[in-house]
């Protein structure tokens, strides 16, 4: 019976190779996922390239005047062809208008959002908190055309009231002066609509940052006999400060790129207007939409250049904002 012991087994399984080398399927998998992951880079790059390619001609002929002058005219000569010599494109008025409405939006919207975030994080009972957070998140998904219509039909009336009040008591401040008594469809009202539109994003970012406040420090503040406000001032505000700044800049970026809502509520006039209560203004995005309908191919190239400027501007603001926000959570404070 010992023969079975001495007999070698019919087949010896080959020694398994133990290795960290990725298999073929993994190589394919990693390749596909990496390609997908790089898509954001590719898309942003393509946006930059195509807008630059189409807007390059305008940028070259207009030079720096594109950013510093406020003259938009696509001249046509007697033969009905485009007169490139006498066509002037400059977006200074709209750039200033973009900043004006975005800054109004931030000045009005941020205190409300940050206050709301503080209430939701430190004061609200659980039940109220859930409902309000859902409501504010839902508002982020409202279509912008809805904000536009709401601003035009509903907010207009109440903001005219505030505009007149501001003009009455603060007309000694230059920006609240009125060159003519028209307050409807002003940058102020557009700014208020944008303020409402940025409330969800600024609130949710601030809330996220406030909720990361270290619990032990909060408890230490209470244990020392501090009131809730004293705790907020000593612990939460210093912790959240830079993150809130980032949230504000994200709001600013959103407000700068908004098109349809601004187009609906604002009386778009191609001039530099610092009087925020006066019925004239515009921003780059709404100007593009306004001019696009009847633009010749030549003028569309100029609009592409304007889009490029807007793209780069919002990209810079957003990138700075994201850098600041992502630093907050990780730093030791």
């Amino acid at each position, binding site marked *: 019976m010992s023969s079975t012991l001495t007999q070698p087994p019919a087949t010896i399984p080959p020694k398994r190779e133990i290795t960290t080398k990725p298999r073929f399927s*993994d190589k394919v*998998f990693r390749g596909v*996922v*990496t390609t*997908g*992951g*790089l*898509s*954001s*880079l590719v*898309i*942003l790059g393509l*946006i930059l390239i195509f*807008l630059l*390619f189409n807007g390059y001609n305008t940028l070259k002929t207009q030079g720096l005047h594109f950013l510093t002058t406020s003259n938009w005219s696509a001249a046509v000569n007697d033969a009905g062809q485009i007169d490139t010599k006498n066509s002037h494109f400059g977006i200074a008025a709209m750039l200033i208008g973009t900043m004006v409405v975005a800054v109004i939006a931030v000045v009005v919207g941020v205190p*409300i*959002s940050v*206050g*709301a975030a503080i*209430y*939701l994080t430190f*004061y609200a009972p659980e039940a109220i908190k859930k409902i309000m957070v859902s409501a*504010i998140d*839902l*508002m982020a*998904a*409202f*279509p*912008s*055309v809805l904000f536009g*219509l*709401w601003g035009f039909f*509903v907010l207009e009336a109440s903001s005219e*009231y505030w505009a007149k*009040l501001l003009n009455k008591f603060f007309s000694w401040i230059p920006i609240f002066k009125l060159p003519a008594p028209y307050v409807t469809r002003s940058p102020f009202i557009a700014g208020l609509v944008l303020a*409402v539109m940025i*409330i969800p994003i600024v609130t949710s970012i601030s809330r996220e940052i406030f909720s990361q406040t270290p619990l032990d420090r909060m408890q230490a503040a209470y244990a020392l006999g501090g*009131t*809730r*406000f*004293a705790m*907020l001032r000593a612990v939460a505000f210093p912790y959240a400060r830079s993150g809130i700044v980032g949230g504000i800049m994200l709001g600013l*970026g*959103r407000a700068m790129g908004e*098109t*349809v809502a601004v187009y609906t509520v604002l009386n778009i006039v191609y001039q530099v207007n610092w009087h925020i209560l006066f019925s004239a203004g515009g921003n780059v*995005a709404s100007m*593009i*939409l306004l001019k*696009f309908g009847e633009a010749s191919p030549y003028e569309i190239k100029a*609009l*592409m250049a304007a*889009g490029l400027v*807007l793209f780069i501007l*919002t*990209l810079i603001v*957003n*990138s700075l904002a*994201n*850098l600041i926000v992502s630093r907050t959570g990780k730093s030791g404070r």
Partner: protein
Amino acid sequence: MSIIEKPVTPKPRKPWAATPVDRAKTGGIVLAALAVSFVFVAVTPMSGKLAYAAIFCLAYLVIDFVVSFVKAGRPAAVDSFFRGLVTTAIVIAVMPIVSILVTVWVRGHKGLHWTLFTKDMHSNSFTDPIGQGGLLHAIIGTFLLVFFAMIISVPIGILTALYLTEIRGKFTRPIEFLVQAMSGVPSIVAGLFIYAAILIPFTKTVNGFQGSLALAILMIPTVARTSQEVLKLIPSDLREAGVALGGTQWRSVALVVVPAARSGLITAMILGVARVAGETAPILLLTGGSGTKNYNIFNGSLGSLPNYVWQAFAAGTPESIARAWAGILVLLVIVVILFTAARILGNRKVGKK
């Protein structure tokens, strides 16, 4: 010594809860603030609901501050004042939501009728009486636009999220940064880009698919970021178990991680759809706004809900504006349903089947 005392269970005390006296005091302050606001509005030339609201808030804050100051000193007064301030802030933040929802219903329900969902606008104009024509074409158009945007953006978004959570190669930080930067791209710029990249060189005319492409650009960051959050929550034990059983990374991701995160990934998809369903600016540049039903997204002008609202609003007559509000109401109902679905799915615990 047989006095057996009944065991006394101490009643839990809540020193932080409001006593009846506190409640009475708060009520008194509110009444006083109301009185002040009425007197103030009556005496000064200010008028209107807004004046009442503003003066009431200010008066409440001031009276509250004074009462707390007298009763408990400066720190308590400041604390109380700040509480009033942030409460005002949340009320102001929620007010527009309530106002928007009420406005849409009040102005929109008049324009609702059954033909909205059975007819299109090919033989009617926006200025016709409400009962004629409908927005079937716009609902079909929006559905097609969003569906194709979803088909393009969901795989890309989820692959990006997988790269950020599973592969974590050397591009992780830059890609995370770029995805966040991409979420700030203005919608009009996305429209201009597709116009420059597809419409000028190739098609030279409007069609629906170009709109879908632009919407996909706006949707990718939302899908990618939400999916990333969900995939982060999957415990790494699951991945390690998959690999330890001899599975390749591909199999452990495809058969373990992704199924575990399924409901979260669906949430990400729905949130992306809700984000782009009402986008207007790129639609206006790229798809055209036909009033006739069009089932072919690759050919011909395609009507959609945002476009319908936009055109009806621009027409400017009472009938057309009623149509615009009815269109907005339908659009908003779609968005709210999507959002609620995402919430319900998202609240389910990740990792459970």
